[in-house]
């Protein structure tokens, strides 16, 4: 796993996606047998995420992760106006 992109984001003064307890939305690319998934954020950065807290996560799902663990699958609904 590489976190070079994340480190660069921190250095630039932007919110780091996990190191200050912030959630990040990730696309699931591949689910491995031990419940770990390779997931990518919108910027294309890939990291390994523990998916075991959500039932039936599959490739193509969108999840919200905190500190390396996916907490919920996100539904693609629009903002209510």
């Amino acid at each position, binding site marked *: 796993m590489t976190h070079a992109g994340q480190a660069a984001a921190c250095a630039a003064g932007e919110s780091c996606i*996990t190191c200050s307890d912030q959630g990040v939305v990730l696309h699931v690319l591949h689910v491995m047998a031990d419940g770990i998934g390779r997931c990518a954020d919108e910027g294309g950065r890939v990291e390994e995420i523990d998916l*075991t807290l959500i039932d039936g996560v599959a490739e193509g799902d969108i999840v919200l992760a905190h500190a390396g663990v996916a907490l919920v699958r996100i539904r693609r609904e629009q903002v209510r106006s």
Partner: protein
Amino acid sequence: MKFVDEYRDADLGRALAAEIVTTVEPGRHYKVMEVCGGHTHTIYKYGVDDLLPANVELVHGPGCPVCVIPMGRVDDAIAVARIPEVIFTCFGDMMRVPGSAGTLLDAKAEGADVRMVYSPLDALRIARQNPGRQVVFFAIGFETTAPSTALTLMRAKAERVPNFSCFCNHVTIVPPLRALLESPDLRLDGFIGPGHVSTVVGARPFEFIPRDYGKPIVISGFEPLDVLQSVHMVLTQLAQGRCEVENQYTRVVPYDGNPRALEALAEVFELRPHFEWRGLGFISQSGLKLSAAYRDFDAESRYPVPGIRVADPKACQCGEVLKGVIKPWECKVFGTACTPERPIGTCMVSSEGACAAYYNYGRLARERQVV
């Protein structure tokens, strides 16, 4: 950007702001607390407060996990980090939080092996890669990061990793909210509830706020339109004489949370009788420690820690900022002696801290320029 741009639409924002103007009573002053540091960050990054009428005040709450760590716990962490066989791992923000005699970053400069990680799973990986060293993870955060620590400890136990332990500082969100509601300093009209904590605990734990205190709470997402809509929902409840738990963040937050995460928390952690919060003092049953089944992984059992309570620096008013009693710019050292580069208080350290959010997004002015 897909799934992001929809929540940053300027026209929608202006329409919501116009609706808010028609919702509030002109002569009434409204104080709405955003509990979570992530909301504070959004408000000042996107200027959400500038879209609100002058009589709607957003008050920053205690929901930044770095900001509420007391100095004594930082001193304890540094004491563990200085033990020669220890590799001490923590989230990046924690390395810059001042203890009574410096930071973890200072300890690293003086020879301690302190390493930044992005998740406790990374710390466990370091432990597997360094069987001859002891790896300690500095666990902080609310119910959002606690599941990550729990799953890591469950893996460590299943894999029988003997050289991994956890210095546990996890806290829970409901007790400080109750403490704030009991505080005579602060009269709040309603709350913007923590979105990501609620993915784990659900909305149910917040039902005491309308039931016992008669205040509305709206669980909110973190994009600017999420926050603006949540403010509108709180104000609408007040205008209609209602007080309920409402969920603006339905695309993410199930009302019952994540039962599997709650099971993991119940297995790995138990409540401490008391835990100290910066600015709020000791709050009963607000902190987590490792349960008896995981005591072997408890760094506080493995290593001696000073455990001394340390008073905050007199110049620092993080406590008042965390309680929403003063705004960051009202602190005597804000932007002068205390800056993100050389923070005195925790609120200036974390990007989620109210002081850092004000400072980083240019909110140095004492008067809000309302558009």
